[in-house]
C-alpha cells in the first residue's frame, strides 16, 4: 500500500515540519533564569505527528482512488454536495428549513447574552458575505475594499443620529442607499479594470474611506470615534441591555432571511445571469448585447447596499464606532468568507461566515494557538477544497420536448 518512495516523502515532510516549528516548539527562552530551554521531545512529537497525518492523508487518497476505479460513473454525481441534494428535494428542504428556523428562533433563550452577541456578529458577516458574493462571486469583480461600504453605513447612522437625532429605522434605508451610491462612485472609475488592477484600486478606496474618517476630525471626530449612538427603538418602549440585544438579534435574523431571499432571486434572474456571464467572458458578454457598465455598476451598488445596512446595524449594536473597526482586515475576512464558502454559492457563503466567525470564538480554548489553528484550517481548506466548502451549482431547468 505504501511504497518506499511515499514513506521517504513522508519522512522528508515530517523533517521539514520539525524544522519549521523549531523556533516556537523547541526553543523556550526563560528571561528570569536567563537560560534557553531546548524541548527536544516537542520536536519528536511534531515529527511523529506529521508523519501520522501524512499516512492518513495518503491512505484516504488510496481509498478514494480505489473507489473511483470501482465506479467511474458515480464520480460526476459526487461533485454535487450533500446540501445541494438535500435542497433539491422539496420535502427534505422544508423539514431542514423548519428545523433551522426553530434553532435560530430559540437560540437566544437557550444560551447566554454573550453567545447571542457572538451569533449577532456571525449573522452580520453572513449578510456582508452575501453582499460581497454578488460582487466577487457572481460578477467576478475582485473587491478588496468592501469594508468601505460597511463604514459608510455605520457612519451614516452614527452621524445622522448624533447631529439630527434620527432613529435606527429611519436611517436603515438611508445607510443602505448611501452605501449603494458609494458603490456606484467607486464603480465608475474602475469600469475598465479587471482582476489584480481592480483589486488594487478597491483596496485603495477602502483605505481612503478609513483615512478620511480617521483624519477629518470636524466630520467624524477622528480616531476617538462617535459614542452614545442610540440602540434600535421598539415602539418607544424602554429596553434593558439584554432585551435590546435580543431585539437586535431578531432584527438581524429578519435581515438575513430578507437578504437570502433577495440574493437568491437576483441570482436566478436576467440580471444574475448577466453578472455570471460578465465574470466568464467580458468580450463575449458585450457581443451578446449586455451593457457592461450598467451590469458592473448594479453589481457594485447592490453589493454595497447590504454592507451599508449591516453597517447601520453594527453601529446600533455597539453604540460606539471608530475607524479602527473598518480596517483592511475586515475586508480580508469578508473576502475569505466568500472564497472559503464557495464563490457564487449562497449556502456556501452562509456556512463560510458561520465557520469563519464562530470558529475563532470557540477556538479560544486553545488560547494562544487560536490564530495558528485558524490559519492552519484555512490553508488546509484551500489545499483540499479549493472550490470552497459548498461549490456553486448552476440551476437546472426542466422542459417538455416540443417535437
Amino acid at each position, binding site marked *: 500500500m505504501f511504497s518506499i518512495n511515499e514513506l521517504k516523502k513522508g519522512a522528508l515532510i515530517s523533517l521539514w515540519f520539525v524544522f519549521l516549528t523549531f523556533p516556537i516548539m523547541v526553543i523556550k527562552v526563560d528571561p528570569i533564569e536567563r537560560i534557553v530551554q531546548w524541548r527536544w521531545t516537542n520536536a519528536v512529537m511534531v515529527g511523529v505527528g506529521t508523519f501520522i497525518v501524512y499516512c492518513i492523508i495518503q491512505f484516504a487518497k488510496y481509498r478514494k482512488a480505489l473507489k473511483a476505479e470501482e465506479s467511474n460513473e458515480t464520480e460526476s454525481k459526487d461533485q454535487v454536495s450533500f446540501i445541494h441534494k438535500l435542497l433539491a428535494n422539496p420535502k427534505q428542504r422544508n423539514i431542514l428549513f423548519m428545523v433551522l428556523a426553530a434553532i435560530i428562533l430559540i437560540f437566544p433563550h437557550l444560551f447566554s447574552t454573550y453567545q447571542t452577541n457572538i451569533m449577532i456578529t456571525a449573522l452580520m458577516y453572513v449578510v456582508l458575505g452575501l453582499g460581497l458574493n454578488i460582487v466577487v462571486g457572481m460578477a467576478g469583480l475582485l473587491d478588496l475594499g468592501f469594508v468601505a461600504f460597511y463604514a459608510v453605513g455605520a457612519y451614516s447612522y452614527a452621524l445622522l443620529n448624533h447631529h439630527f437625532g434620527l432613529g435606527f429605522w429611519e436611517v436603515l434605508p438611508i445607510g443602505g442607499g448611501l452605501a449603494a451610491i458609494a458603490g456606484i462612485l467607486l464603480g465608475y472609475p474602475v469600469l475598465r479594470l479587471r482582476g489584480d488592477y481592480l483589486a488594487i484600486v478597491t483596496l485603495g478606496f477602502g483605505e481612503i474611506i478609513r483615512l478620511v474618517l480617521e483624519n477629518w476630525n470636524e466630520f467624524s471626530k477622528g480616531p476617538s470615534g462617535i459614542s452614545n449612538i442610540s440602540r434600535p427603538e421598539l415602539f418607544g418602549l424602554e429596553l434593558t441591555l439584554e432585551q435590546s440585544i435580543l431585539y437586535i438579534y431578531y432584527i438581524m435574523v429578519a435581515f438575513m432571511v430578507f437578504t437570502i431571499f433577495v440574493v437568491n432571486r*437576483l441570482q436566478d434572474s*436576467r440580471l444574475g445571469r448577466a453578472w455570471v456571464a460578465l465574470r466568464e467572458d467580458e468580450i*463575449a458578454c458585450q457581443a*451578446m*448585447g*449586455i451593457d457592461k457598465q450598467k451590469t458592473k455598476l448594479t453589481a457594485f451598488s447592490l453589493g454595497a447596499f447590504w454592507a451599508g445596512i449591516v453597517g447601520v446595524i453594527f453601529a446600533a449594536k455597539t453604540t460606539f464606532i471608530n475607524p479602527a473597526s473598518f480596517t483592511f482586515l475586515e475586508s480580508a475576512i469578508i473576502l475569505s468568507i466568500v472564497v472559503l464558502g464557495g464563490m457564487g454559492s449562497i449556502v456556501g457563503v452562509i456556512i463560510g461566515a458561520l465557520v469563519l466567525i464562530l470558529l475563532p470564538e470557540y477556538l479560544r480554548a486553545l488560547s494562544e494557538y487560536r490564530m495558528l489553528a485558524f490559519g492552519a484550517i484555512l490553508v488546509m481548506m484551500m489545499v483540499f477544497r479549493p472550490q470552497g466548502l459548498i461549490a456553486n451549482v448552476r440551476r437546472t*431547468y426542466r*422542459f417538455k420536448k416540443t*417535437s
Partner: protein
Amino acid sequence: MTTPILKVTGLTMDFGGIRALNKLDLDVHTGEIVALIGPNGAGKTTFFNCVTGIYVPTAGDVLLTPPGAGKSTSLKGLKPNHVTMKGLARTFQNIRLFPKMTVLENVMIGRHCRTKAFIIGAIFRGPATRKEEQEIMAMSFSLLEKIGLADKANELAENLSYGEQRRLEIARALATEPLLLLLDEPAAGMNPQETQELINLIREISSDGQAILLIEHDMKLVMTLSDRIFVMDYGKKIAEGRPEEIRTNPEVIKAYLGEDVDA
C-alpha cells in the same frame, strides 16, 4: 434592387502605421449567405471587429437597414452591445462561450438584449417578469432543439465537445434575433463529418430567411453555401462574385497560391 441589410463603404482601419483594412466595400442582402475569404492575415477578423464595434474604424461607414423599414442606421462608433441591439450578432474564431454556465443559460444570455426585467423585476418577480422568463426559456430551448443540443441543456458549456461548442455559439448568437448573423470561421478545427453537419445547420438557418456573413477557410463549405464571395488580401478587396467566378479568378489564385515566376 432592394437596399442591402448591411452596407459597408470605404472601411479603413489603421493600427499605428499598419493599415489593416483599406477602403473596403461590402454589402449583404436579405436571405443571402455571403462569405469573406482571404489568406491568413488578410484582415478578415479585423473587419468583423470593426463592424461589431470592438474596434472603431479609422474611416468609412457601416450602415444597417432593417428590411421593410427603409431607415438605415450607422453602426460606426457604437459599443458592441449596442451593435448587437441594432441587429448584428457574431460568433468568435476562438470559441468564447461562458464555460461555467449551463448550455441553456448560454443561450438565455443571448436573449438579454431583447428583454428588460431589472432589479425590481428580479426581486419581486411580478407577472410580467415571470412571463418574460418563461419566454426566454421557451425560445432558448427551441433554439437548442434546432441545433440538436436539447438533451444537454443542463450541462456546463465547458463539458461539450468542440463541434457542439461551435454550434452552441451559433445558437447563442441567434437568440439575439439578429438581422445579420456573422460567423467567424465556424468550421475551424472540425473534422469532415462535423463540417458537413455544420453546412446542413447553416443551410437550415438560412432557409428561414436569415442573412449570414461568414469568414471561412474551408473551401468546401464556402463554395457549397455562399451566394456571393468577397476575397480580401492585405486589407483590400481583390475580388467579388459568385462561387464559380471566384474559383477561376486569376487575382484570387495569385493571392492564395502565389505568382508564377517566369524566368
